[in-house]
């Protein structure tokens, strides 16, 4: 093998090494920083650690919204299972009972402590994975 070819192969190997380590670092940081999205029923089936930030999507159960000072508590339901949520802050304009909502936060002792509550900026929005039957 002549020296120029040797050098070229060496350079390619260096580039490959850097790209692979770079991509794996990005993927690692992606996997440690992503938020899982669950419906209340999916949440029931899984064991989750309370240190993992997750998103819960569903409908706000009618009659469940209670306020105490600036703190608000409500129930997110998919009409099969539900979960209690507490949140300290202003809920978005489109937050109302019987309407779609997504909460981001941590599950602690079966209560979901939300850091952020989102309502889709669309009156006709329905969270994914929920089939509504009109009787409920």
């Amino acid at each position, binding site marked *: 093998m002549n020296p120029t070819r040797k050098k070229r192969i060496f350079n390619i190997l260096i580039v490959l090494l850097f790209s692979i380590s*770079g*991509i794996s670092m*990005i*993927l690692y*940081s*992606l996997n*440690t*920083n*992503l*938020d*899982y*999205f*669950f419906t209340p029923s999916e949440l029931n089936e899984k064991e989750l650690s309370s240190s993992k930030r997750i*998103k819960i999507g569903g409908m706000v159960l009618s009659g469940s919204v209670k*306020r105490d*000072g*600036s703190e608000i508590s409500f129930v997110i339901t998919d009409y099969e299972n539900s979960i209690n949520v507490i949140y*300290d*802050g*202003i*809920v978005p*304009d*489109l937050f109302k009972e019987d309407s779609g909502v997504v909460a*981001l936060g941590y599950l602690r002792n079966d209560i979901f402590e939300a850091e952020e509550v989102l309502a*889709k*900026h669309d*009156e006709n929005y329905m969270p*994914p*994975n929920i089939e509504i039957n009109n009787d409920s």
Partner: protein
Amino acid sequence: MIVEISHFLTILATGLFLLSGLFATFINNTEYISNLIARTYSHAFFFLIASFGLYVWLAATDNFSVLYIASHSNTNLPIFYKISSIWSAHEGSMFLWIVFLAIWGFIFNFKISQSNPLKSLTLGILSLVIVGFLLFLLLTSNPFQTILPIPPINGADINPVLQDPALVIHPPTLYLGYVGFSIPFACAIAFLIKGNSDIEWELMVQKWSIMAWIFLTIGITLGSWWAYYELGWGGYWFWDPVENVALMPWLAATAFIHSLSVSIKSKKLRVWTILLSILVFSLSLFGAFIVRSGIIDSVHSFANDPERGLYLLGFISLIIITSLILFVLRFSKIQSIERIKRFSKESFVSINNIFFGVLIFSVMLGVTYPLIYEYLFNQKISVGAPFYTAIFSPIVLLACIFLIFSVDSKWSRRLKSNLLDLPVVVSTTSSAIITLLFLYFFDINDLYMNLLIFVGFLIILRYMFEIYKLIKFRKYINPFSAIAHMALGLLLISISLNSSLSTERAMSLKIDETVKYKDLSINFQNINLSNGSNYDAIKADLLIQTTDGKSVKLSPEKRRYFTRGQITTETAIHASPIRDIYITIGDQLDDGSWVVNIQLNYLIRWIWFSAILMSFAGILLVITHKKSTFTFKKSIS
């Protein structure tokens, strides 16, 4: 009747653009043919503009027999919102997008002389791209559809959060940026087709690329500013998928204009510049695909329509695949033999181009990963700010360190830097001292934030030394680079301090109650009902006093719009250079008190100011750009 004329003119324009494209691609380039292409393009352009003009007139005169206008406008709206309702939803905004694309091409046609060897081909390629979009408009998103026989008496109204001056200009500015990159793209493709490496296409497109970059920068900044005061969330960037798909072309475009200047100065990185021009345009199209296919949930997304998504995906794939095949075929002809010297200015720009690539790749991964993940594991996920912060902080930091090295470096020569140079020592130590002072007084505990503040100051001080040398010893500096990079330093400092110092609290307040928050005392004075022309509102009056005796009155509102029943938040902001006091009002509680949210957003104005300063550097470059550099006579040697 008018809508049919408008529709017909667009179809006519499509045919003519197609002709212009075919002339350029299939017939050998004689003077007669290139004149024919230029003229066909102009005619097609005038038909398209006439069509759009008629459409604007239809919108301005409340012609609700047009389905699109009936669903997005209303007689009660002021005239400029009637017109801006055209770009408030998918079909009309696509129409505007195409018109802008055609305008760029028209100015190109007008400005570049007929003798330019790339002109006809570039114009032809542009025409074909326009045809692709026009077919998309006519086949999948027709804005000319009518409601017959009986049109509605009034329209459905524009979404109230979009009834805002910033939203009148934000989409057009952004679109001008996106489609502006079609010019360097088309030139690069024309260059590849010609396969003559003596032609300096880079010089020809520099001004155009920077203009498109300016529009993109200002467009993104306007969007950020609008979201801040209108949506009531109080931030300037949310890593929303639609923001991300605007950030990707911006990053690629920034890498592109850097690479472009290297190619012009020293004939290096030419291959890379071509790839970037293809990348920028593809990412602009990818943005259109993400927003308009409804494939990703976002506040911005238009209604879900798989047919549109498929068309756009096919169109983008066609463009990328043909460009890349062409690139591979011509690779041997355009490859530069000269190697880049270590520690030369080119080497630093190249390294930072790699960092730009990493950032683009990461954002792309963050946008598409939820789709891939759900497909593979059947589990919905979302990627938010923590991921992007984890990637951007170290990469931007590294890139800035190379940027600082590049200040001293020379084109095609090794950097002979002495680490004990006076400017280096002084700027490094003073930046370190400033950073430590911030750390001490404001207790900034995030390592990356401290480091970013440090490099931010370092960049600014380093360039200040250069400016000093310019004044004192007439030493040449590139003023555009100096301004743009100092703006970057300012941006890093303001982002870091903003994220470290800003605070927020929600509280419940009764009328006449006073609470203390930080150095403020907040007195909830009153709440009253008020009426606007198309909404009613609850308006709160709060008197805010600082410890040094200054007081401001802020009145946040909650509005309910009649036509859609939609509720919106009107924030009340007391803006100042140091910090914004940002207040929104929530619901009334059972005990009669109201939920009030207060945010103190530090240095947030400086973030937008830095972005504007960056685009100002671009504007300065465009207006002082020497005429001779775009004509072609000199550049063929």
